[in-house]
């Protein structure tokens, strides 16, 4: 049975802004879905419509088969974790976690048991009698999680819950959230614009662009088989290399560069070639060359940024590309590297509508 189902969902704010432009989505029970997309694309709006914090202009949302368009937020059986935690400052941690249960008429003993259990799971047992102000950011985040967990909702909603934490804690909490979700087996929707978070947490990712689902699928599926230029450039870090090209019936041409081995591409349109940094390798007989501008050392590997020599220059700017090499490879600035292209993994898109053609 479907956990959450969205059909033709649209949102037009009273000021006329159209934030969500028709979204259809089926989320299976227990699935971890992540919404990613650039700022302002409507991720939060969509999530808040599921939560009941925004009205649904058009379309339907159902949870476990029940249409919830007109159901009040408290009766939807969903719990939400906010970016700024939104803990109740005048209540203790225990009070924060108990409050929703109390309102639902749980007995004292029941509440006590649930709070204790969640506190143990989240390792916030020692702070149960403290106020939120007396906790660190990570601890507050845990309490916010705890407040959602004790309710045992059908759906967890997260709106950028980790973006107020420092990098290390973010990674730690990310793992913890995933583990908790696995263990509790609760359908979850998670909004983020951090694509590492998106890739690592999601069972399935929904890439949202300007109020529409651009593509939805497993993280690797989106990484390997993006259907549009937008998805290709949004998923993957470092970003995919994009080179403007045309097809002459036989080769992909960009300025002085000609890459053979391509077939059945449109010859009448401007195209964009996309190659992931991992698919460019240093190789003496390489077909393309890179002039090194910058070497970033990331520990296990280095990223080399530079200009793709001979490529068609757009408005006088050189085409910047990036390749991934091992730790030992440290070329000098302005050195020229010959690169081989892994053509079996090359992606080609139409420039005009961004659709993938190869």
């Amino acid at each position, binding site marked *: 049975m479907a956990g959450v189902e969205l059909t033709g969902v649209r949102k037009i704010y009273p000021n006329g802004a159209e934030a969500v432009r028709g979204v259809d989505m089926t989320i299976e029970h227990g699935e971890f879905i992540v919404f990613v997309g650039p700022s302002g694309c409507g991720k939060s709006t969509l999530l808040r419509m599921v939560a009941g*914090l925004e009205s649904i202009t058009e379309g339907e949302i159902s949870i476990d088969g029940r249409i919830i368009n007109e159901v009040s937020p408290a009766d939807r059986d969903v*719990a939400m974790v*906010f970016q700024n935690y939104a803990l*109740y400052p*005048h209540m203790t941690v225990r009070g924060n976690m108990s*409050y929703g249960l109390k309102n639902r008429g749980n007995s004292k003993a029941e509440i006590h048991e649930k709070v204790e259990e969640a506190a143990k799971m989240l390792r916030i047992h020692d702070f149960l009698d403290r106020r939120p102000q007396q906790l660190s950011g990570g601890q507050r985040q845990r309490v916010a999680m705890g*407040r959602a967990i004790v309710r045992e909702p059908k759906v967890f909603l997260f709106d950028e819950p980790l973006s107020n934490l420092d990098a290390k804690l973010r990674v730690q909490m990310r793992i913890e959230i995933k583990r908790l979700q696995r263990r509790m087996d609760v359908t979850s929707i998670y909004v983020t614009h951090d694509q590492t978070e998106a890739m690592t947490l999601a069972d399935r990712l929904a890439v949202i662009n300007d109020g529409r689902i651009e593509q939805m699928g497993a993280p690797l599926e989106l990484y390997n088989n993006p259907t549009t230029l937008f998805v290709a450039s949004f998923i993957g870090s470092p970003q995919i290399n994009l080179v403007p090209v045309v097809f002459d019936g036989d080769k992909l041409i960009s300025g002085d560069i000609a890459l053979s081995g391509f077939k059945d591409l449109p010859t009448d349109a401007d195209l964009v070639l996309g190659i992931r940094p991992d698919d460019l390798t240093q190789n003496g007989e390489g077909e393309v060359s890179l002039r090194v501008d910058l070497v970033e050392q990331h520990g296990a590997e280095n990223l080399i940024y530079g200009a793709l020599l001979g490529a068609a220059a757009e408005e006088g700017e050189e085409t910047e590309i990036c390749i991934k090499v091992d730790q030992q490879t440290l070329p000098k600035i302005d050195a020229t590297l010959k690169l081989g292209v892994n053509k079996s993994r090359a992606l080609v898109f139409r420039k005009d509508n961004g659709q993938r053609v190869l």
Partner: protein
Amino acid sequence: MTTPQALRSGYNHLVLILGVIFLVGPIALTFLSSTHTSATLARDSLQFSWGGHFLDNYSRVLTLEAGFTDSVTPLAMLKNSLIVGLGVATLTTGFSILSAYAVVFFRFKIAALVFWLVLVTLLFPLEARFVNTFEVAASLGLINTHAGIILPAVAAAIGTFFYRQYFLTLPEELLEAAIMDGTGPVKFFIDFIIPLSWPRTAAIFIISFMIGWNQYLWPLMISTDDSLYTLVRGIRLIGPTSGPGMALVIITIIPPFLLLLAFQKWAFNTLHVEQK
């Protein structure tokens, strides 16, 4: 060590000490004068020294029985003052928090207009609308009642403003989290607004208590009956420039001062926190 910082701190203290002298001076002067005979005060004006008639003056005030039927006693006046002070404070605080809650959290279309209308009442203090207010009070049969003294002083826009500014600082997500936890408008008011606003409430309560307590002109107009004399009016009755009058001034200061002491932790915390 005379670093610039030490100098600055010394200077700050000097300013604060001068401020304290400026504020406490009149009270000290009144207190010292209240230990002199009325004759001394009439002849030589206020006194800066201890006069030795402390017991005389204070016992005269405390055993006072004035008015047509001797019904104006210190205890009766204190009772009236407390009824008026507490009445004004309770009602002002209650109406302020409710009206601010309404204009901030219930986004009805004319909320902004309502708020500005409330604020405009600041421009019409009670003194500026005595005649009209008197007519209204009279037609409601409020002459010579406590309610008549209390009600006109209750419309204090400053309380609404004070609460509103605070409510606006509460993050939107607090309300949203509460809604998802099953809170309705009444529950949110009781479980969140009231406990979160305690310090504000303490401050507004004290301020409006003072307003009620210190009322003079309005009670004078609306009540002719001896049984409604407040302490502040009693001062006038005894003669504000006499020794016992000075004593009564001091006595009148004490209850609001005690209230302030009781609430100071909360009230001053607000002011302190807000500065941060």
